[in-house]
């Protein structure tokens, strides 16, 4: 809402400087900032002349806290980073820890991680698509997308007993094996989900108004995408074919056959539709993974309670729903890390907002912000 946290004063300031601009403050609590982002927007009429994101409203100091937690205790913290896709932060963090501590992960655990992360990708993209649609006023599309997400959340609840903060991927494996019949439910979901995706594609992406709202808005060139460190659907929407699952194929991803959807215009529409297509690909990966997964342990055996990796540093990254999510850990050999850094894709993607929003209208600003899909838990950390 209303937002006006300081705008009045600023307008006066600006007026005092004889600027014929209207400065309005979008956020930090505004329905379409997807969290707590404030965008100081300079308007000429309705045209944005300058949009300056102010972030940090959700900065909780997780990186500092991590220096005071044991390696296992950090896993719940990572849940709260990217709260739309907790599994990713779990996994990226655990990969870095495993790299540092030299833990081998059983194959079944790797498959389970891939499955939950692809489910998480669907869930996250559903949230992103939904809120992008919500930004353009299509509240019903939001609910349809969220309904799909709800199905995945139910599956996650079956799997690990939580709806949002899963704490599922742990150093050395995962915390639970799958319940009975879980895979059957999952496969049934992927089957139905495809239908729902097609429906949403026609309802929203085929709609003349939605296309009008999103086509040609916030065009990001491929060169800019690379230079600004954009990743994930934001980069791929601009035609940058960069997906860590393919190009740094970690875990068991090389065993799956899937495509990388890319856009050609680099506008908000391509970014959003990239996400839609990635959901199809995720369904494919899930189905292949369920077919391939074998019996076995889901956790590295006998890992001690207190991990004390060797001194050193490790960086590992995965392709989250928002892009390449990296975790950099420096260990001094004690039971607590010396420094943990989360390279959050949303942070880097959000930096593009001033570039993209300039010259568009205020209405487009929220569409562009939505198409960058920031999750402020991750942006601010």
């Amino acid at each position, binding site marked *: *809402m209303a937002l006006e946290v300081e705008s009045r004063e600023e307008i006066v300031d600006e007026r005092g400087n004889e600027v014929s601009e209207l400065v309005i403050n979008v956020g930090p609590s505004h329905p379409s900032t997807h969290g707590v982002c404030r965008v100081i927007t300079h308007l000429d009429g309705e045209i944005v002349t300058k949009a300056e994101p102010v972030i940090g409203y959700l900065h909780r100091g997780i990186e500092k806290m991590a220096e005071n937690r044991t390696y296992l205790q950090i896993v719940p913290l990572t849940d709260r980073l990217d709260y739309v896709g907790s599994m990713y932060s779990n996994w990226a963090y655990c990969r870095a820890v495993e790299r540092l501590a030299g833990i081998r992960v059983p194959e079944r655990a790797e498959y389970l991680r891939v499955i939950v992360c692809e489910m998480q990708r669907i869930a996250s993209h559903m949230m992103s698509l939904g809120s992008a649609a919500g930004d353009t006023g299509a509240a019903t599309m939001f609910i349809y997308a969220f309904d799909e997400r709800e199905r995945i959340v139910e599956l996650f609840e079956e799997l690990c007993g939580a709806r949002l903060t899963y704490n599922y991927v742990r150093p050395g494996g995962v915390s639970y094996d799958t319940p009975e019949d879980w895979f059957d439910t999952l496969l049934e979901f992927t089957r139905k989900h495809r239908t729902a995706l097609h429906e949403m594609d026609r309802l929203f992406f085929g709609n003349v108004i939605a296309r009008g*709202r999103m086509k040609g808005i916030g065009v990001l060139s491929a060169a800019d995408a690379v230079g600004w460190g954009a990743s994930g659907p934001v980069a791929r929407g601009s035609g940058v074919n960069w997906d860590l699952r393919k190009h740094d194929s970690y875990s068991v991803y090389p065993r799956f056959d899937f495509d990388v959807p890319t856009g050609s215009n680099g506008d908000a529409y391509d970014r959003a539709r990239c996400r839609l297509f990635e959901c199809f690909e995720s369904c494919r990966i899930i189905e292949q993974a369920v077919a391939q997964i074998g019996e076995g342990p889901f956790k590295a055996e006998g890992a001690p309670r207190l991990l004390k990796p060797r001194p050193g540093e490790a960086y590992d990254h995965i392709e989250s729903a928002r892009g390449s999510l990296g975790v950099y850990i420096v260990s001094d050999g004690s039971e607590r890390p010396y420094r943990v850094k989360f390279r959050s894709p949303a942070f880097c993607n959000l930096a593009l907002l001033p570039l993209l929003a300039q010259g568009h209208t205020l209405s487009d600003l929220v569409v562009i912000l939505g198409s960058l899909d920031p999750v402020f838990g991750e942006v601010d950390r």
Partner: protein
Amino acid sequence: MSGSVFTGYTGGLIWGLGGGLVIAIATLFGVWWERKVAGRIQMRLGPQTTGPFGLLQTVADMVKLLLKEDITPTQADAPVFRVAPLIVFVPIAMAVTVIPFAAGWAPLDTSVGMLFFLAVPSVSVIGILMAGWSSGNSYATLGGLRGAAQMISYELPRTLSVLSVVLLAGSLRPVEVMEAWRWWFIPLNGIGFLVYFISSVAECNRGPFDIPEAESELVAGYFADYSGIRWAIFMMSEYGGVIAASLFGAALFLGGWAWAPGLFGTAIFLLLTVVLVTAMIWIKWTFPRMRMDQLMNTAWKVLTPMALLQIAIIGVVIAWL
């Protein structure tokens, strides 16, 4: 009924107050109906626990809003701010009075009824501008300006679309139009009805044309700083506008009471109105919101030509008859 208190200035006043009351009550049901329909579209239930089928939900809302604190922001232009909701509401309540509800009867039966209906609600643009400007809030200001531009733009296609019916019926008096109404008006006025419907939606600031109050951009637009009963009046005018436009459309384009004699006709008329209201709700909850420039493009480049095409068709038909 000439000479009765129900005509002239006193009549206008009485019927105007009556219209306001009807709109207020209709709004209660309208909001309830919208929440139910929207819920259904969204696979939800909508209000359910307050009263049977949640029917008392809007009553509770209304009572609560009445008792809410009535905030006038310190930076607001207080007198303008306070009066703006009424300036939006009164014209809408007045407009209802010319609608031919039953065979041969409209509360305010004037010879320029059609014009009255189209012209009077336009006054609420001023109220919206006042509300937006006086709030002293940049969102509200933007919303008010957007609203004014939008409503003025859509006046034209809407008026033109009504013109085709007027041409066919040969009268500006709603009751006479209704008496002249035949079922083949429907196919003949198809395009006109579409134009009327869409521009009515836009006139009422309803989705997908709700950009003056765009929730995701302007939070609540021109009434962002209104609370309690004053905001309720804004909501009533919005729903009043929807109901009035639906009543008028159901009468002119769908035949209203002309389908059957007596109270039956009125029942059919109200049923058709509900259908139109539902349609408006439905498209609001189905489509994304337009952007300002798209909105203008639609008005001037799509709807106005379509309305002109309709008039041309009617002209040809009349000439041919």
